[in-house]
């Protein structure tokens, strides 16, 4: 090999390698790589307690790496003799949307793009036609005359269509009535989103972004741990709170006390009182046969 050809070949080779490396830039910028540990993880229902503990440690590690906040991740199981039911007083709701944002803060939803589990529909008096509802209202003051406000979120159906369509069983109904999602098992096909008659499921089209100072460190595996791009999420009645005995975040922040939650199997709970004594007018879209655990009721 002559000196000239050696130099020429090495120059071309160096340029070529540098160019290949530079053209792979987008690959290096990809962050959300699935770790081998997560990839090899077993199905939620097959995990032994030891394996679950390891999974929770992995999640804590990953969240700390990404947000710089050490979370407390738990795997809370449903309680015996408990079935959750939600009731919402349409006579009292003023449509202030505090519940929407308390939910986002509690459940670590993406802030940009914005993911919200609760939609507050502004409905004209005299109809329950959901097509007439508007959730983009922005008035100086609520409530407005001639309208009522109807917050809609996951209805935790007895007969959930979203669970039936899931091809990988990444979503299922637990015995306390909460339909949960395993974010590590979801393949992001969005069948459940299409199947839900309440528009209650949300998809992470992009990598969720949450400011670290707004991250809620009290997390549950099936609840509010941070999601990745390409998975579904939805309201889960705040499992990280309610399975520890607390009220959901949307209820605690409601200024009017329109939101009521409790154990329907306890005859003395306020939710049992309401369903027994108040004018419970409906389950939303009763006619589609989903039989929600979310009731709307009136005073008087």
């Amino acid at each position, binding site marked *: 090999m002559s000196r000239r050809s050696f130099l020429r070949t090495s120059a*071309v080779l160096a*340029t*070529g390698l*540098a*160019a*290949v490396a*530079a*053209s792979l*830039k*987008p690959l290096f910028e990809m962050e959300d790589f699935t770790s081998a540990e997560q990839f090899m993880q077993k199905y939620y229902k097959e995990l032994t307690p030891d394996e679950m503990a390891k999974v929770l440690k992995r999640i804590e590690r990953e969240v700390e790496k990404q947000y710089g906040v050490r979370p407390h991740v738990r795997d809370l199981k449903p309680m015996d003799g*408990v079935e959750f039911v939600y009731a919402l007083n349409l006579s009292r709701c*003023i449509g*202030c*949307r*505090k519940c*929407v*944002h*308390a939910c*986002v*803060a509690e459940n670590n939803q993406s*802030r*940009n*793009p*914005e993911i*919200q589990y609760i*939609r507050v529909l502004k409905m004209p008096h005299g109809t329950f036609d959901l097509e007439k509802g508007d*959730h*983009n*209202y*922005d*008035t*100086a*003051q*609520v409530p407005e005359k001639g309208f009522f406000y109807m917050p809609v979120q996951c209805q935790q159906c007895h007969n959930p269509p979203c669970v039936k369509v899931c091809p990988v069983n990444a979503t299922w109904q637990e015995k306390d009535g909460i339909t949960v999602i395993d974010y590590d098992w979801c393949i992001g096909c969005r069948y459940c989103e299409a199947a839900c008659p309440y528009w209650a499921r949300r998809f992470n*089209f*992009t990598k969720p972004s949450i*400011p670290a100072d*707004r991250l809620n460190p009290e997390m549950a595996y099936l609840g509010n741990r941070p999601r990745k791009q390409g998975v579904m999420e939805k309201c889960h009645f705040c499992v990280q709170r*309610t399975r*520890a*005995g*607390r*009220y959901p975040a949307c209820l*605690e*922040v409601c*200024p*009017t*006390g329109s939101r*009521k*939650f*409790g*154990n329907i199997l306890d005859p003395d*709970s*306020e939710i049992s*009182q*309401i369903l027994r*004594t*108040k004018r419970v007018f409906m389950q939303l879209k009763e006619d589609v046969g989903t039989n929600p655990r979310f009731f709307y009721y009136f*005073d*008087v």
Partner: protein
Amino acid sequence: MQARNRTPMVLTILVVAFAGLAAAFLSDSWGYPAPRAIIPPVDRAILDPATVRRSYADLVRAKEDLSDFDCYACHEKGHPPPLRYDGNQKLIVPPEHADVVMGHGTHGRNNNCFNCHNENNLTTLQPRDGRELKLEESTQLCGSCHGPTYRDWDSGAHGRINGYWNTKLGPAVKKDCVNCHNPHSPRFPGRKPAPGPHPLHPVAEPAQAVEAPPTH
């Protein structure tokens, strides 16, 4: 012989292609990812689960300054303060009590302070049944007229409860009537709603639907 000649050409083309791709990525000529609209974080006041008002019982519990409730700092014991009315039987609120809005009831008929306050002891309340209640016990006073609402509140169907639904695991904090309602003007005030959803791809105002002509 031909294959030997083609190799440098293919290599050169590849190098040029990769160099071009690299230059394009480095200069970010696609502008990817597209910049997103900035969504300001919501005001933390929106996330605050506190009730809109604080009751007298709350103030006592928090050991706050209760000098506002010391009626006999100004009033004289044993002399019920006189009430003055204008020509329309409307109570004239003295300037010392300018913060009191007489808005309880819809027809202006509830215009007597001593329907609820005790004229003989201003630091207590008096329901119509002759009991004498402390300021902390105001729910009893409200319940003496608003029976069905009191029944609902008592069972948990009306009003706010914070804390634990499962009282074996923690306390449930039941809020009083005056935590949400101003006793002098009980209608719950309106407020500015928290920001609505920011869609990633905002839709333009929907055009007025045009009725399609029948096709048959």
